């Protein structure tokens, strides 16, 4: 687990062609490495954009209208979950709870959480990272 975190933190995903090296280092089969990587939602096997926008889909955020927000964000970015904008800037991911439920709905851009968000704020956030 710490090894996979290190790889993903560094290059953004776990390329399948490093499975054999991981398998050898950890004394596992390639199938076991594949099984491990794909079990955990956090690990990705495909490259992502420069920034990651995670939108909370859990109950607390739903109680504050996150379903509409999800739809609006997808429409605004022109992508669905697990996809990256055409300019390669933002990858959209669903997340189940950011632990900021007193201020729902919440999203996380990279490592920063934003609470009580609306589309105006999301638009600003996205344009900040897209132009930054």
């Amino acid at each position, binding site marked *: *687990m710490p090894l996979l*975190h290190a790889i993903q933190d560094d290059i953004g995903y776990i390329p399948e062609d490093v499975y054999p090296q991981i398998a050898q280092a950890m004394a596992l089969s390639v199938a076991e490495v594949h099984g491990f990587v794909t079990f*955990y939602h*956090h690990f990705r096997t495909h490259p992502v954009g420069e920034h990651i926008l995670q939108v909370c889909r859990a*109950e607390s955020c739903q*109680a504050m209208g996150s379903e509409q927000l999800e739809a609006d964000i997808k429409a605004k970015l022109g992508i669905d979950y697990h996809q990256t904008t055409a300019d390669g800037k933002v990858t959209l991911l669903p997340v189940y*709870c950011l632990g900021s*439920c*007193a201020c729902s709905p919440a999203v996380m851009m990279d490592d920063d*959480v934003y609470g009580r968000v609306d589309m105006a704020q999301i638009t600003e956030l996205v344009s900040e990272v897209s132009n930054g």
Partner: protein
Amino acid sequence: MVKVFVPRDSTALSLGADKTAKAIQLEAEKRGIAIQLIRNGSRGLFWVEPMVEVETAQGRVAYAPVKPKDVASLFDADFLNGANHALYLGLTNEIPYLKNQQRLTFARAGVTDPVSLEDYVAHDGYKGLKNALTMTQEDIIKTVTESGLRGRGGAAFPTGIKWNTVLGASGEQKYIVCNADEGDSGTYSDRMVMEDDPFVLIEGMTIAGIAVGATQGYIYLRSEYPHALHVLNEAIAKATLAGYLGDDVCGSGQRFYLEVRRAAGAYVCGEETSLLESLEGKRGLVRFKPPLPAIEGLFGKPTVVNNVISLATIPIILDKGAQYYADYGMGRSRGTLPIQLAGNIKQGGLVELAFGVTLRELLYDYGGGSASGRPIRAVQVGGPLGAYLPESQFDTPMDYEAFQNLWAVLGHGGIVAFDDTVNMAKMARYAFEFCSVESCGKCTPCRIGAVRGVEVMDKIASGKDHAKNIQVLRDLSDTMLNGSLCALGGMTPYPVISALNHFGEDFGLDKGLNEKESVV
């Protein structure tokens, strides 16, 4: 030099606390005023974050919510001397939301700088460990048992009894594992401990290690909490440097080492055996029990697995004694519960109170009703596997047994409020959908049942063979409830069936003709 406090808790940050802190620093420099800016934890009054505090001769004074645009006017009004202002809330300790709470586990949250060991010690930190080091292992565990503390992660198993099992288990190597995989929607008290008062968790784990004879502790932390990771690592480094962790804990000759392990976004890893598998570097598949983790846990060794709040409550019990803690609460629910108000609620935040407070008091006296201003129609208590409660049950006291009698759970103390625009059949469908996404796949009722649950909810929504499908829903829930290996599959029926029983009209049943039967 005047001390100004701006929280660094991630919910406070999510509302712009960093920008507020920067604006205060710049404005002070511009005016040539020397201030000491301290990034404290949050008091948990999240609806008014960012909450800025100033230390005055009368005590700390609060201003909230402070945005960068408010900073100049605060200086103009002389807030550094606690003067009046449109955002003035008075003395922090006199704010009713805070004043009426019984903060034991969260005594320091928001008061101190979370990564200052000096601050921690100055506010009664490490008193519990000092006491524990003068006691026998049996006496430490007896104190924990007599305090009545039960597992705060949700299962409510008596902590002292678990520790005693590990103490009695034979084995050279034993482990303390802290379950910090707080994945339940509506809960954030674990995150608050780790970000706002991390030393209390470190101290609690150290006491646990000494009590059962474990030398290594792991904190299994969810990957969605990057701020908590940094704070914990910084605090562990400081505690190690100061001799509170390591080869010789406080000069006692006892060893205890602590390490944070990042999880990777699997909800099921909050289940203790799945968590242990994950810590061992495997897929987080649930294990059969027995053997209990207390006998054969991490790497097959005797292991204490406790939730963050359970462990963070240990120091005050060892400091003030079992009776002090047990004097709070009702029935078999002793002590306090850090309750988290979330969802559609006007005044969301952390409310730590003795067991016995009612849902209605929490939702209205503390929460101030819904955020939307509409009537609160339902609340889900205890995370995504907790039951939905209708308004007619709002007078239920927060008590493990009282909730159990309603076929509901207290869980980790998270309360998510929904107003009258909610469709409860949709929430039931969501419960199955969540279970299907998060199921570890080991047992059939959970793996297949969750998918079938989504399908049957869609059929109910379409109205086709309605009565038959309602029966299928109940049968399926019964199978999952009784046939699943762990709480994920076994408790997904709680939100589903409680929604069906209390809000049948959303499932196309005539209001007033709701089926009264239940799977329990």
